């Protein structure tokens, strides 16, 4: 071997050595924790771990038990209702607020501050304050009754049928400000000349929004959708604070199911199985989107 050949290989590895060393935390986290952790959880969901992880494989046992549990079914139902309504309403409300804010109004900063401040609060705070407002004795129901409508009932937090809507109201209060900001940024990115051209063409405002502007804002809508969707699956703190999952199990959500079984009911296996289901749900949403956005473009 000549002296040249061996010198090539180590050179590649040592290029940018500092950068590579500095990136070790990121790589560790990405591969070790995100990838590795998720994989570990999925694998162990096929075991019958109780208080501590045990490597005894029991096939799909945990999953069968999961889907037989009414509590889990309720949590999935709740997530579905909450998720779909949350998506629709926050997008619609967020967009309408953004459209209003885009009209060159005065006090724009003030309004934006007001719409967005709930986002700065913890879900715990949000949950607690809405728990208070929806309190049947002192809250909205009490007030409306004291104003004369004696039979007015609005106690979502005590009514298993509609408790999820109480949580929805609180979540919308917290989250629509962010959607509005994103939509407003998207609206502001629309070329002014398009508005002018539509005006000269005699196209009324609502048609301009519906047929020209909104189609142009597709990327923003998709990004917002993904952000809202990823937040929906994670919903936990809000439920804990507002209803503690009650009344009974009526406002149970998957994230809470996982936590309760993992850390309180000493049934890790169930917790893992439930987590795996959550992961699956997210994957179903994210993978098509990622493919649409980045498909073909980059290969890491």
């Amino acid at each position, binding site marked *: 071997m000549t002296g040249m050949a061996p010198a090539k290989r180590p050179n590649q590895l040592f290029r940018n050595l500092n950068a590579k060393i500095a990136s070790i935390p990121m790589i560790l986290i990405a591969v070790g924790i995100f990838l590795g952790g998720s994989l570990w959880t999925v694998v162990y969901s096929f075991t019958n771990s109780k208080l501590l992880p045990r490597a005894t494989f029991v096939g799909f046992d945990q999953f069968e038990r999961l889907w037989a549990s009414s509590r889990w079914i309720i949590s999935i139902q709740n997530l579905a209702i909450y998720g779909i309504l949350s998506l629709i309403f926050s997008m619609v409300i967020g967009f309408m607020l953004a459209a209003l804010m885009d009209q060159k109004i005065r006090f724009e900063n003030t309004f934006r501050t007001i719409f967005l401040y709930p986002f700065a609060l913890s879900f715990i705070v949000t949950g607690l304050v809405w728990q208070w407002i929806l309190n049947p004795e002192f809250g909205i129901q009490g007030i409306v009754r004291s104003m004369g409508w004696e039979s007015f009932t609005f106690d979502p937090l005590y009514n298993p049928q509609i408790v999820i809507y109480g949580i929805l109201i609180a979540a919308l209060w917290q989250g629509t400000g962010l959607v509005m900001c994103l939509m407003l940024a998207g609206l502001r990115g629309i070329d002014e000349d398009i508005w002018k051209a539509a005006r000269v063409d005699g196209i009324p405002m609502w048609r301009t929004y519906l047929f020209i502007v909104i*189609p142009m804002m597709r990327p923003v809508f998709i990004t917002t959708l993904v952000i809202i969707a990823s937040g929906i699956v994670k919903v936990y703190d809000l439920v804990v604070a507002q209803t503690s999952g009650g009344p009974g199990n009526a406002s149970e959500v998957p994230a809470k199911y996982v936590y309760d079984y993992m850390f309180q009911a000493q049934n890790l296996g169930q917790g893992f199985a439930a987590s795996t289901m959550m992961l699956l749900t997210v994957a179903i949403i994210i993978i098509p989107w990622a493919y649409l956005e980045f498909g073909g473009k980059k290969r890491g």
Partner: protein
Amino acid sequence: MNNSVSIRDLSLSFGAVSVLQNLNLDIRDGEFLVLLGSSGCGKSTLLNCIAGLLEPTEGQIFIKGRNVTWEEPKDRGIGMVFQSYALYPQMTVEKNLSFGLRVAKVPKEDIQRRIARAADILQIQPLLNRKPAELSGGQRQRVAIGRALVRDVDVFLFDEPLSNLDAKLRSELRVEIKRLHHSLKNTMIYVTHDQIEALTLADRIAIMKSGVIQQLDDPVTIYNRPVNLFVAGFIGSPSMNFLRGELAEEGGCPVFRTHGVSFSLDGYDTAEPLMPGRKVVLGVRPEHIHVDNHKAGAEMHDAVVDIEEPMGADNLLWLKHAGHTMSVRTGGAKRFAPGTKLQLSFDMSVASLFDAETEVRI
């Protein structure tokens, strides 16, 4: 004479900032009027006021004899072409053209007829089913013009439509727009900062500065008899030579004197008396200074070549004389080395004198 568009005492201010000041303008039927000026002079603002996209603070706008000052853009009988084309990105070319008509509930056959006509004139038939993203810049601009065409209007407004295109496309489309004007014979109001476009396209040019029309004339007049220093310097490339000096009298005839050198003003056309002692600026275009083929009896000046810029067909010579460096245009065949001594003659019949203070033409 029919006036297609008339502007009366138009003013527009944003708060304390006055963008347009007391503008009066009459545009004849079928005329191609260019609003020319650099950024911020108010030309786009004026166009937007005519279109109805901006509200004037004061004044009135008439289109085809109708007072449209308070009318919405769609009711003014105008079509508009924008710098960024502003085509609706998610619709095909055909939908772009027909959207406004469908909203106005124009009957289907009528829409088809109009689109066919526009597609024919602009040669965009093969593009009808494509989306704007699939078109080239030139094609997009034609579709934008088509969108104005299908509206069956009298007045077309162009807001710097060629500024987004590269030089070659620009000159191609310029010719097309001129052909379009010849075949359609509509009134066209065209905003640009490019003087070449103005000179080639316009029937009349309105040069604007700081919200005021400096001169409104046909291109030849603006070129040869600019009304003030600003117009003289703005039009013409390479730009006019300006020599600062004063008027004097020699042998009973008025002369221009600078740095001790006198220039005969024989042939200069002016109604004003040329009083000696008045501080003035003499403007002469590079092609009106000759280094050869001098007219018989012309006054000669000795100059030294400073630098030459060969441009292929022409040669731009920079010469030093009378304390100034001036540019002279000659044929591209001859070359001149720096330091060469030359004799110059000036064609005063097409020169311009401006009062040094008011900058107005004398």
